[in-house]
């Protein structure tokens, strides 16, 4: 199974993601520079966190115009699992692959802390090993992480089961405490918290197993046995 890690100018969680994919889960991962195209035989794509283009204009908006996004859009239509983490989530939203928008946190602060997520949709390629409403202790690290949708869109998201993760309590003022969403088909998932910073017991003071299930879900989806 081949996983692509997309690198934009200013990505800074790409190596953490690569390390987790290769060293922790023994997957075949490869970096793809945002100006290159993705090979046809790729099985999953991850857009890592960071500060693409220094968050200029708006987090994720300039990267959303990168050439590689066209390939990611085609793969999204084909049903290939795509995960955007933090800045990757912002890029997926700005490129129109996911609904909503990510605004500055209500506190206006860059927030770097541990949160608890609640799994609201366990049918996606990244959540199929969870039970509904499982809790995931996981860190956030963002300045523009407040997910916003208007009331009508929120109703639609609920109806179509597109809310994947919610914070267990108010963190940054996100609509409906949303921390992660998916597209209608469920194969494109975006989340603000960082699973790649939570899957190893050495750096997770709470419990690393729930975050690991995000990657194990993908492996189950792709039929990988390690």
């Amino acid at each position, binding site marked *: 199974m081949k996983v692509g890690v997309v690198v934009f100018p200013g990505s800074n969680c790409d190596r953490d993601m690569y390390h987790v994919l290769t060293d922790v889960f023994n997957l075949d991962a490869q970096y793809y520079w945002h100006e290159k195209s993705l090979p046809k035989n790729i099985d999953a794509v991850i857009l890592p966190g960071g500060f693409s283009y220094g968050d200029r204009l708006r987090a994720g908006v300039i990267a959303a115009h990168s050439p590689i996004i066209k390939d990611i859009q085609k793969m999204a239509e084909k049903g290939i699992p795509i995960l955007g983490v933090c800045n990757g989530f912002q890029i997926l939203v700005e490129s129109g692959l996911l609904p909503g*928008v990510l*605004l500055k946190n209500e506190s206006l602060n860059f927030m770097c802390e541990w949160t608890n997520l609640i799994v609201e949709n366990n049918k996606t390629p990244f959540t199929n090993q969870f039970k509904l409403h499982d809790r995931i202790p996981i860190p956030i690290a963002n300045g523009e992480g407040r997910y916003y949708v208007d009331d009508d869109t929120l109703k639609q998201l609920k109806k179509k089961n597109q809310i994947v993760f919610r914070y267990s309590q108010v963190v940054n003022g996100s609509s409906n405490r949303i921390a992660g969403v998916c597209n209608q088909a469920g194969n494109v998932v975006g989340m603000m918290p960082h699973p790649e910073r939570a899957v190893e017991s050495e750096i997770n003071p709470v419990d690393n197993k729930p975050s690991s299930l995000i990657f194990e879900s993908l492996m189950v989806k792709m039929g990988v046995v390690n």
Partner: protein
Amino acid sequence: MATFNVQVTIENKPGISDPEGDTILNDLVLKGTHKTVSKIKTAKMLKFTIKEKNKKTAESKIQEICDELRIYNPVVSKITVAVFDA
């Protein structure tokens, strides 16, 4: 062709909270002696310099650029475009 300066102001749509504007109002302006201020909204301004036939085409071209490249996010933001002779 003439040169125009075009100011694009990007601000939140009504109903989208603006915590920075609220903080400037409540914790700075209203804590002083300036009690007649009732609202402060923050915005971002981009200043374009563009060569176009006239003011009208300059405005429509800038509007097109802002829409096409998502210079503003229409979910939460709106823009106002003001054209000036360079």
